[in-house]
């Protein structure tokens, strides 16, 4: 048994856990962080995009030190059918700024660096340690953790659950529900390595400029899902994900879908000749605002993916994770500085502060979208992409058909597929959920 008592134990060394441990350690708290991987980052999977603003709030000088890949100058959205894509590209030289807004990163490398800052701040980081249980006293208050080491229980005033989307501790202890098939997506990803010059030529980049491609359409075969392609320095992160409930219902395989995506005529040339060096999979919280569990209790708080804090519409997750980790830590520091106990009432400060931040405001704004996308997935991910593609082809192909006839045919194809009421209903539903 570790006799030492800590002010706080942080479970997990991902974005949320590192942000929390760093913030508390810097404020002089005695912090123990437990990570089950061999090194911080070895169990973590993300696309991955890093949002600078949220990182800067934690480590202002991160741009000089952290392993970053490319800063993003271009975002592409693709609506795909089986042979084509209709795209919207936004590229701006404004993003070649002194302090760029977004970067691609490789999580295993970034997290290792992030964790080194946590250690520098004075926290004890213990890897290769799986926390098996929360320790509670006779009044059911959380008083520490049990691990798979022989040390038995470790005690602390408060436990920060930063255990990720598939965290077992909180669910085993009945503090929150297990994720359900309709509020998590399964994404699979491959890392494709190519020479730097090849990547820059294929994506129209120079230096450390980067591009993000987000793709939706028939690639998810009528299921609620998306594909992504991110340019790193010497590799391309490429993946696709769909709701677990949709995989379960359709019997589609995730690797089959990934293969199909890779072979799409718009995608294949980007990765031709590459060497794959890793294949990973990860769950993504997609339930949004309505899936957020109780965030705090007697002696505990939950942060990041474990609390379902992910904005699926804007593809933002790790910034919500690090922000919730930081805010939870600030709340804990405040309670401690008042020399008050870590009770549910006192820790409600975390929820109050989070409610006032962009994290909950953004999730609240889109609270109805996850359900809409799920219940109308056939329309949004199959029918419309096909219609849009046909309309574009009709628009650009010159074949002697008068334009008025072409436009009539396009309109007719939309009405035939969805009917006037259907089109109007979809537009209203979407507008209402987006508002």
């Amino acid at each position, binding site marked *: 048994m570790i006799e030492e008592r800590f002010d706080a134990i942080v479970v997990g060394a991902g974005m949320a856990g590192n942000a929390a441990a760093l913030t508390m350690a810097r404020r002089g708290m005695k912090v123990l962080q437990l990570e*089950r*991987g*061999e090194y911080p*980052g*070895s*169990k*973590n*999977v*993300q696309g*991955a995009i890093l949002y600078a603003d949220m990182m800067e709030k934690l480590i202002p000088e991160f741009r000089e030190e952290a392993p970053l890949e490319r800063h993003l100058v271009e975002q592409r959205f693709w609506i795909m059918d*089986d*042979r084509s894509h209709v795209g919207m590209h936004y590229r701006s030289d404004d993003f070649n700024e002194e302090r760029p807004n977004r970067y691609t990163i*490789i*999580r*295993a*490398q970034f*997290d290792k660096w992030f964790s080194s800052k946590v250690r520098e701040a004075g926290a004890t980081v213990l*890897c*290769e*340690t*799986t926390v*098996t249980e929360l320790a509670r006293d006779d009044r059911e208050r959380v008083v520490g953790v049990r*691990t*798979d*080491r022989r040390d038995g229980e470790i005690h602390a005033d408060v436990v920060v659950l930063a255990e990720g*989307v*598939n965290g*077992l501790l909180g669910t085993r202890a009945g503090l929150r529900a*297990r*994720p*359900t*098939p309709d509020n*998590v997506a*399964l994404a*699979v990803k*491959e*890392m494709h390595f190519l020479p730097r010059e090849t990547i820059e030529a294929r994506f129209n980049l120079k230096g450390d400029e980067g591009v993000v491609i987000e793709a939706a359409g028939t690639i998810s075969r009528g299921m609620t899902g998306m594909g992504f392609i991110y340019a790193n320095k010497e*590799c391309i992160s490429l993946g696709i994900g769909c709701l*677990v409930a949709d*995989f*379960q219902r359709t*019997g*589609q*395989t*995730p*690797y*089959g879908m990934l*293969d199909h995506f890779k*072979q799409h*005529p718009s995608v294949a040339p980007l990765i031709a000749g590459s060497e*794959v*060096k*890793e*294949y*990973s*999979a*990860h*769950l993504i919280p997609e339930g949004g605002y309505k899936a957020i569990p109780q965030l705090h209790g007697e002696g505990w708080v939950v942060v990041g993916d474990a609390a379902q804090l992910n904005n699926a519409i804007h593809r933002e997750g790790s910034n919500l994770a690090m922000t919730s980790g930081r805010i939870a830590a600030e709340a804990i520091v405040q309670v401690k500085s008042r020399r008050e106990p870590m009770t549910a009432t006192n820790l409600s400060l975390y929820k109050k502060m989070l409610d006032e931040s962009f994290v909950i405001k953004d999730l609240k704004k889109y609270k109805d979208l996850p359900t809409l996308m799920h219940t109308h997935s056939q329309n949004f991910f199959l029918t419309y992409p096909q219609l849009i593609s046909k309309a574009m082809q009709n628009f650009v192909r010159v074949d002697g058909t008068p334009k008025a006839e072409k436009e009539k045919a396009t309109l007719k194809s939309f009405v035939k597929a969805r009917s006037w009421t259907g089109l109007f209903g979809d537009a209203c539903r979407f507008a209402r959920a987006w508002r």
Partner: protein
Amino acid sequence: MNVEPSMRVEDKLYYNRYLVDVGHPHVKVRAHTTPSPQLLALLKVCPARCYELNDNGQVEITVDGCIECGTCRVIAEPTGDIQWSHPRGGYGVLFKFG
């Protein structure tokens, strides 16, 4: 469209680094005679294809290639069909890139 034959998942897993905890599988399938729909779903949905049917028509798991996503836990833990834990500290998949 020129479609190359797709790669077997088992071969993809060779890209990854694992430290297998021999004799301590972190996921177990409950003994059964006929698989439930949830167990059968795992044959397709597991991204590492850890679940397979044996000759008696029962679902079996080999955890060596598991990438610890937790999808099977979400589907089949509520029905009691599987028991899911994280591997012991340090064991399991070790992502180089993540």
